[in-house]
Each structure stands twice: as C-alpha cells, then as structure tokens.
C-alpha cells in the first residue's frame, strides 16, 4: 500500500467518523428542512406585515376569536400527544406509540376541518384572492397565502404521521422515524404561534 493510499484512507475515515453534530443523518436533514421552512414562513409573514403596514384601509374582518382559539388549543394539544408518541416509542411501547401518533393525526384532521370551514365562511362573505367587502383587496391574497401555506403543511403532516405510524406498527420504521415526524409536527405548531397573532388577533374587529 502506497503512502498516498494511506493518506486517502486517513482522510476518508476522518470524514466518516460520524454524522455532523453527533445526531442521526435523517434527524439532521429534518432540522435543516425546518430551518429552511422557517425562512419560507418568515418571508411570508414579513411580506404580510409589509403590506399591512403600508395599507391604510387594512380590513379587520374577524369578529370572534372562538374558532381560532379552538384551533390553537387543538394544535397545542396535538404537540403534547406527539411528544407522548415519541416518548412511548423510545420506551419500546409499540401500541402506545401508534395510538398517540394516530391521535395526533386525528387532531390535525380536526384542525384542518375547522380551518377549511373558516375559509368557506370568509369566501361566503365575499372574500376572494383579489377583493373583499371590508377594505383593500390585498388582504385576501395575503390571508389565503399565509394560512394556505400553513394548512398545506398540516395536511402533509397528517399524511406523514399516518404513513409513519402504520409503517412503525408493521416494523418497517423505528422510534427514530417517529421522533423525526414529531419534529416536523412540532414545527407546524410553532409556526401557528406566529400566524395567530399577526393574521388573526391584530385584525380583530373591536
């Protein structure tokens, strides 16, 4: 074996010593995705804030906080059930992990149902992407873009939760996969913590 081969071997073994930050590669990939998605949502919210700040007749169409409060409660509770799913998976309780993950998915479906019902209510009141009865037409496009991006993430999360839970139950996935889909679900909840105050609560009709 030549000196060059030895050097190459030394380099590659150093490179393959372990994954970065000593966490599984799949988990690191999910963290990178979360960082990237944070930028996407932040850009949407900054654009929304820019439009709201620069538009004098910004509408305040929300008369009740009941619906958004219930949606927030459901999503926060689903984070707890997701945590319980990850915890039971780590302990090795397969049935428990499956049950909690499916409960989380059900909560996501409930959230999506309430969200779509709210959308239909606003559309029924005459709100579209480009006009609404209360003020600037920009409101509709901004509102539907921000909340639409979020509900897309929720629906994708529900599908991912169901697929991962079923595959975990059949033994094809392990506790790490439940944890990774859990990270995504917590992120979806985290985004909602910013959407609620800026898109709903700052636009309450007092």
């Amino acid at each position, binding site marked *: 074996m030549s000196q060059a081969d030895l050097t190459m071997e030394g380099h590659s073994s150093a490179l393959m010593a372990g994954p970065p*930050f*000593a*966490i599984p590669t799949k988990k*690191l990939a999910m*963290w990178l995705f979360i*960082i990237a998605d*944070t*930028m996407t949502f*932040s*850009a949407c919210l*900054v654009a929304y*804030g*820019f*439009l709201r*700040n*620069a538009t*004098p007749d910004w509408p305040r169409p929300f008369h009740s*906080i009941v619906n958004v*409060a219930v949606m*927030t*409660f459901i999503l*926060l*509770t689903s*984070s*707890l059930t*997701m*945590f*319980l799913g990850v*915890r039971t998976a*780590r*302990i*090795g309780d397969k049935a428990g992990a499956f049950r909690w993950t499916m409960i989380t998915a059900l909560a996501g479906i409930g959230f999506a149902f309430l969200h779509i019902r709210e959308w239909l209510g606003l559309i029924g009141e005459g709100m579209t992407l480009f006009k609404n009865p209360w003020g600037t037409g920009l409101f509709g496009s901004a509102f539907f873009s921000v909340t639409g991006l979020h509900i897309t993430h929720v629906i994708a999360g529900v599908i991912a939760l169901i697929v991962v839970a079923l595959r975990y139950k059949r033994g094809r996935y392990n506790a790490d996969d439940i944890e990774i889909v859990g*990270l995504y679900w*917590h*992120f979806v*909840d*985290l985004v909602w*913590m*910013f959407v*609620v*105050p*800026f898109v709903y*609560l*700052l636009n*309450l009709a*007092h």
Partner: protein
Amino acid sequence: MAIAAEQRREGIGKYLVVYLCLLALAGLQFLIAYQDITASQMFRRMLSVAVVEAGVAVMFFMHLWSEKRGLLLFVIIFTIFVLLSMQFGWSDSFRLTHCGGYCS
C-alpha cells in the same frame, strides 16, 4: 436502552408543565388582543410572547436543549441571522404609509 431508561425515569410531569405554559402564553396573546393599546404596541407584545412560546416549544418539545451544543448554536445563530436579515424592508413600508407611495 439507555435512552429508554432515561425516558422512563424522567416521567411526563415536566412536559405537562411545558404544555400548560404554552397554553397560558397562547391565552396571553388573546388577552393582549383585547387591550386598549396602539397596533404597534400590540404587535411588539404579541411578537415577544410568540418568541418565548416558540423558544419553549423548540427547547423542550423538540428536545433541542438536550441535543449537542453544536447543533443548538448552529440552529439558533443561523436562524436568527437570516430572520434579522429579512427585516430590511420595513422602512419602505413606513414610507408608503406616510407618503401614499408618491415620495421619492
């Protein structure tokens, strides 16, 4: 196995407290919405609460606190840097508000 034993020992008490804190913070945002203050004050207060809420969720529910310090620093520093870099356009939105879009 070590992780499983640690999870069993830890219990869920701490995480129930985290969940209740998150509910309380979310409730606080709803209370702020009904305060008799200006929109900019309301925005600042709600943003502060949302940042605390997100921090609690990331550290405890997403277990960032118990990950390697390198990952924690990477996520926080990188994210904050890019988020701050996005704020360059606000002055222009104030220009549009105060000049009706006709100022140069």
